[in-house]
């Protein structure tokens, strides 16, 4: 019996090792980057679709008559009818949805009652403030937390310097437990009221200085949380077999940490950090309030209190997309560092 094995490979006698066998099953001819981009792009698109549907439903889900709430306290029946027509609430559901989506593609997000201006204008004038704050904080967090966590992880590995471990542990626990708005308030107290070195609120022309405190308030909790993760991951990575191999090659410690350990620890860190970084966007909502920062977070609070539904819809949509972009950015960084993700 000299059958060929099922997959056609010839099983011959006394041959040398089976041929070079690639274990990944990537489709031939297609660059891994393209398939990865497609996959992630699909994810963002899905997020967008869901966000559109959800924001549309906001108005629909409101108990009671949205036209009444929108028209305000002192509206009479006629005014309420007028508002109903304006909001298109009299149309059947599908028409409303179609109009909504159609409007989105045209860039028309409706009209805000409280501001008496197009929502798109209100939203896009505020967007740079929130986006700027968020991305700046993201960079600060990564630049501070990763080296910090890694160094502490290295210096405290295998039980060295327990005092350092304790200080780090407790202080990061403390600061990640403080809500951003509380921290913001305390920062204002210390730096604006007592020390008077930094402005307590935004004012045009003073952007750089005004950016400092909100950024710090927003980043600190994330820095602490991520630094803890990095430290733990450093400890885990240092125990891996491939680090033992590097020690066998008698690689210098610095080279071991930077070349061998760092890429692996970044992978898990970034994976776990996604949620934390998104939480930062949520924190922006309250932080902006403290600093009178004219961003989307501040905007949505006002919109909700005024029950300005078109404005709420617009801001939620843009905030959701901002979150999706942040995640995408983190995932792209991840894919650059760790090729296994691309496969």
């Amino acid at each position, binding site marked *: 019996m000299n*059958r060929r*094995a*099922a*997959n056609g490979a010839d*099983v*011959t*006698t006394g041959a040398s090792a089976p041929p070079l066998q690639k274990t990944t*099953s990537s489709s031939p001819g297609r660059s891994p980057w393209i398939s990865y981009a497609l996959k992630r792009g699909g994810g963002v698109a899905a997020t967008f679709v869901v966000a559109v549907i959800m924001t549309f439903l906001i108005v629909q889900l409101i108990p009671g008559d949205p036209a009444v709430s929108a028209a305000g306290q002192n509206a009479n029946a006629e005014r309420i009818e007028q508002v109903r027509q304006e909001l298109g609430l009299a149309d059947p559901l599908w028409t409303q949805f179609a109009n909504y989506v159609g409007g989105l593609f045209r860039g028309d997000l409706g009209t805000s009652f409280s501001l008496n201006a197009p929502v798109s204008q209100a939203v896009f004038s505020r967007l740079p403030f929130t986006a700027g704050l968020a991305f700046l904080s993201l960079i600060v967090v990564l630049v501070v937390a990763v080296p910090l966590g890694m160094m502490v992880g290295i210096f405290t590995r295998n039980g060295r310097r327990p005092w350092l471990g304790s200080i780090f542990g407790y202080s990061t626990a403390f600061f990640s437990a403080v809500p951003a708005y509380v921290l913001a308030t305390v920062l204002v107290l210390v730096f604006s009221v007592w020390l008077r070195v930094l402005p307590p609120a935004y004012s045009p022309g003073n952007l750089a200085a005004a950016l400092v405190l909100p950024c710090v308030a927003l980043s600190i909790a994330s820095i602490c949380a991520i630094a803890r993760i990095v430290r733990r991951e450093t400890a885990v990575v240092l125990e891996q077999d491939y680090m033992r191999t590097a020690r066998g090659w008698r690689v210098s410690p610095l080279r071991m940490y930077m070349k061998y350990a760092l890429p692996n620890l970044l992978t898990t860190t970034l994976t776990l950090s996604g949620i934390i970084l998104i939480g930062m966007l949520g924190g922006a909502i309250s932080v902006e309030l403290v600093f009178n920062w004219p961003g989307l977070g501040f905007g949505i609070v006002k919109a909700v209190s005024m029950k300005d539904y078109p404005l709420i819809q617009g801001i939620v949509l843009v905030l959701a997309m901002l979150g999706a972009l942040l995640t995408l950015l983190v995932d792209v960084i991840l894919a650059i560092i760790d090729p296994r993700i691309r496969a």
Partner: protein
Amino acid sequence: MSADGISEGLSISNVVVRFGHGVAASNALDSVSMKVGRGRTVGLVGESGSGKSTLAKAVVGIVPIDSGTIAFDGRDVKSRDRKLRAHLLRKIQMIPQDPYSSLSPRRTIGQTLAEAISPTRASVSAHRDRIVSALESVVLKAETIDSYPHQLSGGQRQRVAIARALIVEPELIIADEITSALDVSAQAEVLELISSLREQLDLTMLFISHNLAVVKQVSDDVVVLYRGSVMEAAPAEQLFNDPQHEYTRLLLDAVPGSSTFSLS
């Protein structure tokens, strides 16, 4: 293979199991057919990627098959009839490979065995005698009934796993690489136990291993698997003394200590 009792025992016909989808799909099992006759032990041998574990999981129903049939005593294991399937399932028992995860770490040995006897109530006191005799049949002391898995060695845990499989009084046992994670001396214990149980209980067993020497020690018949296909199937004596297929010969040549092994 025994000529009589063909419709009895385990019968695997043209089973195909696919993994992955689209371009990346591959056949973990490609039209595999074999039989385990009543009272016989069939050794299933293969290297990694051969599909032997997949086959074991397919027989017990953990892995779905894409085509083909698996029948025990003439009855299809995958039949639609739920009662029939449930009835059949207790007749087929598996002993897993890893002694460190095959027993629930939070339950005592007694509780684990009691659960096997009576899955719903799992009361140790009600079945104490039966549990103790099961432990003794695998050469473990009666006190083990109150121990937790982490207090036992790898070999002892495997023996508990064997006891658990046997206590259900199954008609077919699938032993999936049960000695691969054990030290040489623990392995010898377990193999000795298996041998004596085979005699005493007239077991019907599918014994899976990558270790040819181990398979030779416990099997009546041997099936050789490579990349999801059966290369050769023959009674053990015949296969080891006069292998027919190239791959079987390759395998035998590769085992240090075999007469055809050489390092030059």
